[in-house]
C-alpha cells in the first residue's frame, strides 16, 4: 500500500470565489460563470484556454453539461464529481492528478451548490429509493452525538461544554464579520450563541453552519509552467482522501469523540508534505466546522491539540485569528456558509489569499509574516463514524 502524493508537481495559478449566502438573484449558471470568470482573470487566461474541468456539486445538478452549457465550452472534458460535503475538494484532487499525469496542461476545479432554492430548512441530502429502515436523523442530530460523548469522556461539565461550542461559533463569526464574501458578516455575542434555540441535542442555531448558495474555482497547471501565469502561485504539497468502512454506527467500540477517517487522511497528508509538527509548521488551517463540536474534535484528530485538551485550547484562544494556529480565519462553514460543492474550494481560496499576503490588512493572519508558508484544508462528508475525509496542504514556497 502506498500513498505517494504529488508534492510540488502542480500549482494553483488562479482562483475565484463568489460571495456565499442566500443569493435569491443568482442561479447555478450565474454562480458557475462568476467563479470561473474570476478564477480565469486571476490567472490571466481565458476560460477557453483551459484543457479540462472537474465540476463538484452534491445535489444541485448532474453531469458535466451543467458547466459546459452556461460557459459554452468548446467540446472540452468536464467531469462531474460528488463525494458528500467533501465534493469541492474531490473535484480539486482529481483535477490535480490529471495535470500531474501529463494528460492536460491546465485544468479547472470548480464547485457550486444552490441550496436556497429548495424551500427547505437545512440540507436535504441525496434521496435514493430505500427500504425505509434508515433513521431519518438530520445532519445536526448526527453530529450532535459528539458533544455529550466528548464531554463524558473528558469530564467536561455540561455548561462548560456549551461554552466551548459557543466559543468556536463566536470565533468563526468574528472572522466572518471581516470577510466581505462571507454569508454572515456579523459578530455574535457569546450570550446570543449560548441562548439560541436548540436544533438537535445541545446544538443551537449558532452551532450549525450556514445553509447557503455559492461557487468557487481554482485553475492549476504543472509546477514548471506556473510562473508563465503567475508570480506567486500556490504549490500543492499533499492531497489525501479516505472513505472509511462506516464502522461508527455499527461498532460498539466507537465512542463518538473522533473521526478515524480524519486521523488517517491527516497522517497521510502530513507524510506527503513532510509535516511533522502541524501546530508549529502550518500558517493556518481551514477545517470542516459544519457544527461546532466537529471543529473541536478535528483539532485533536489533526494533531493541533493532544487528546482531551482541545476544549481548553479553544477557550484559551489558540485557534483564534491572532492565535498560535489560526483556524478558519475566513469564518469557516459556520460564518462563510456551506454551499456543499463549493466549500472545499472556498477553503483553498482563503489559503490563496492568506499565504500570498493578499488578504485585507484587517484580517491578514500574522503567522504568514512569521515565516510559515503552509496552509491546510480539511473537508469531510457524512457523519461521525461514517464519513469521507479530505486533507490537503498547499504552500507558497517550493520545497518547503
Amino acid at each position, binding site marked *: 500500500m502506498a500513498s505517494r502524493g504529488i508534492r510540488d508537481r502542480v500549482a494553483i495559478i488562479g482562483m475565484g470565489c463568489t460571495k456565499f449566502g442566500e443569493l435569491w438573484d443568482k442561479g447555478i449558471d450565474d454562480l458557475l460563470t462568476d467563479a470561473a470568470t474570476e478564477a480565469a482573470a486571476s490567472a490571466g487566461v481565458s476560460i477557453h484556454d483551459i484543457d479540462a474541468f472537474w465540476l463538484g456539486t452534491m445535489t444541485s445538478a448532474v453531469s458535466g453539461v451543467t458547466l459546459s452549457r452556461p460557459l459554452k465550452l468548446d467540446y472540452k472534458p468536464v467531469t462531474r464529481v460528488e463525494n458528500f460535503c467533501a465534493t469541492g475538494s474531490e473535484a480539486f484532487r482529481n483535477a490535480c492528478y490529471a495535470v500531474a499525469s501529463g494528460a492536460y496542461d491546465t485544468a479547472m476545479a470548480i464547485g457550486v451548490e444552490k441550496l436556497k432554492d*429548495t*424551500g*427547505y*430548512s*437545512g440540507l*436535504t441530502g441525496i*434521496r435514493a*429509493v*430505500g*427500504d*425505509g*429502515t434508515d*433513521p*431519518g*436523523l*438530520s445532519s*445536526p*442530530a*448526527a453530529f*450532535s*452525538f459528539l458533544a*455529550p*460523548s466528548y464531554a*463524558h469522556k473528558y469530564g467536561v461539565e455540561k455548561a462548560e461544554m456549551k461554552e466551548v461550542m459557543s466559543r468556536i461559533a463566536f470565533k468563526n463569526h468574528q472572522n466572518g464579520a471581516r470577510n466581505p464574501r462571507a454569508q454572515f458578516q456579523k459578530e455574535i455575542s457569546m450570550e446570543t450563541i449560548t441562548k439560541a434555540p*436548540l*436544533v*438537535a*441535542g445541545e446544538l443551537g442555531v449558532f452551532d450549525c453552519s450556514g445553509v447557503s448558495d455559492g461557487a468557487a474555482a481554482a485553475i492549476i497547471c504543472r509546477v514548471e509552467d506556473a510562473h508563465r501565469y503567475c508570480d506567486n502561485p500556490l504549490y500543492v504539497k499533499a492531497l489525501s482522501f479516505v472513505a472509511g*468502512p462506516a*464502522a461508527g*454506527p*455499527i*461498532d*460498539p467500540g*466507537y*465512542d*463518538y469523540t473522533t473521526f478515524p477517517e480524519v486521523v488517517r487522511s491527516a497522517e497521510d497528508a502530513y507524510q506527503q508534505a513532510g509535516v511533522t509538527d502541524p501546530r508549529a509548521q502550518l500558517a493556518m488551517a481551514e477545517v470542516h466546522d459544519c457544527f461546532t463540536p466537529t471543529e473541536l474534535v478535528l483539532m485533536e484528530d489533526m494533531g493541533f491539540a493532544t487528546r482531551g485538551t482541545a476544549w481548553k485550547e479553544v477557550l484559551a484562544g489558540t485557534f483564534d485569528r491572532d492565535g498560535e494556529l489560526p483556524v478558519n480565519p475566513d469564518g469557516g462553514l459556520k460564518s462563510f456558509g456551506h454551499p456543499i460543492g463549493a466549500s472545499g474550494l472556498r477553503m483553498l481560496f482563503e489559503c490563496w489569499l492568506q499565504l500570498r499576503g493578499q488578504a485585507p490588512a484587517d484580517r491578514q493572519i500574522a503567522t504568514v509574516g512569521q515565516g510559515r508558508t503552509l496552509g491546510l484544508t480539511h473537508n469531510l462528508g457524512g457523519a461521525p463514524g461514517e464519513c469521507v475525509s479530505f486533507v490537503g496542504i498547499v504552500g507558497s514556497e517550493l520545497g518547503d
Partner: protein
Amino acid sequence: MSAGIVTWGAYLPYWRLQRAAIALVLGAGPGKGSRAVASYDEDTTTLGVEAGRRALALGPVAPQDLLFSTPAPGYLDKSSATTVHAALGLDRSCAAYDFCGSSRSALGTLLLALQGSAARRSLAVVSDLRTGLAGSAEERDSGDGAVAFLCGADDVVAELIGRGASSDEFLDRWRVPGEADSHVWEERFGEEIYVPLAREAFADALKDAGITESDVDHAIVSGLHPRAVRAVTGGLGVSPDALAPDLVGSVGNLGAAQAGLALADVLERARPGQVIVVLSLADGADALVLRTTDALTDAQAAQRAAGVPTVAEQVASGRTDLSYAAFLSWRGQLHREPPRRPDPERPGAPIVHRSGAWKYAFAASRCLVCGFRHLPPTRVCLECRSMDQMQPERLADVRGTVATFTLDHLAFSLSPPVVGVIVDFDGGGRYRCEMTDVSAPELAIGSRVEMTFRRIYTAQGVHNYFWKARPVQGPTSASDPASEGK
C-alpha cells in the same frame, strides 16, 4: 387433554388520554378516568405485533397459522397479517389470514383458532384502534390495544368446553369504507335487539358445556354498546364475584380487542380448574366456555419470568400527560404545520422485499468466523473482513444499552422532536435508531432499552414499518438475554 389456549399476550400502548383533558378543551363537564392511546407511530398492525410477541415470548413453539383480526386494518386488498407474520419472524410455511371489517370477526378469529387447535397450532391476534369524532362518546370511552392467543394441543392452559352463538341483521354501529368515524343508531334500539341475542348465546354455551350459571368462576361481557352490555351483565345470573372488571374506566373499551383483553387479564389471575365464560355482543352474540388446566400456574409463572407485563400492570402504568391537541394531531384531526423538510419517500417494494428479514424480523448477521454482529446484516465482516460467512440472528427480543442519544428538532415527525439513540445490544452489535415512548428525563447514556415494532411514517399511501427502541418495560428479570450468556 383436549386442545385450547396455550399462551396469551396483551399489549396496551404507553399513552393515556385523561378524559378531563378532552373536557378542558371542549368545555364539557369534568371527565373521569382515561383511555389508552396508540402513539403516533402505532397502528392496528404494530399493536398486533406487540401482542403477538408477548404471546410467543415463552417459547420455541411456533404457530402454523396466523389469524389477524381488526376492524381498522392498515390496508385493504393487501394483507396486514403478513406484516405481523414477518415482524414475528414466523416461518414461511406458516399461513397468514386477515379477518377484517366487523368487530365480530375478532371473537370468530379466536374461535377458529381454538376449534382448529387439535390439528394445528394457530396464533389469533386481535387489534383495534378507535378514534371517534371530537367530543363523541366513542372518542372518550374507547381505547387502543391488542391481544393474542396461541392455541394448540400441547401445554394447554384453558380448553374450550362449550360455545353458543346468535345472529341477527340490524343497524346499530357502522362505518362506510374510507370513513374514520363510526355512526351509531339510537342506543335504545340496539339494547332491545342485543339483550335477547346475548341471553340466547350464553344459555346455549352453558348447555353445550354441560354447566350452569353457578359453575361460572369468571364471566366476561364485552361489546361496543354499553347499555346493552350493562343490561346483559345484570341479568346473567352468575355470582357477582365472577364478573370480570371491564377496564373501561382506565384504558377505555378496546372494541374488537376488549373481550380478549379481559380474557388475558382473567388468565393471569385464574386458578387451575376454573370456568371462564366470554360473552361478546357484536352484531349478534358469541359465548365461549373455557376451563383452565393445571398447566395455567406454570404458564403464569413463566410469563412473569419472561418479563412480560400483565394486563393489570399495563393498566396501572402508562403515561398520563398526553395533551388533547397531541391526540387530535396523531389521529389526523388537527392539521399541524409540518417542518420545512421534504416529505418522506415511500419505501421501494423490491428493496423492502430483499431486506425483509432485517426490516420486519430485525435479523442481524453474525460472523461465523469471529462472532461480530452486524446491524443491518452485511456480507463482509467489519471485524475480520471475512466474506459471506454470516448467519442471520433475530435481535427483536434482545435488549440493549443506550451508548449516546440526541433530540432532533429538525427531522420530520408527527411528534417532534425525534429521539435518536445509539444502541449497543447485549451480546454484541450496535444500531442507530429512533427511540419512542420515552420522556426526556429518562434519556441517559447507559439506559436499558428493548425494541418495538412501529409504523415509522406513511408516504404516498405506503406504510413504512420498522423497529424503534423504547425503555425496557415490565420487570427486568433473569430472562434478560444479557444474563443468558448470549
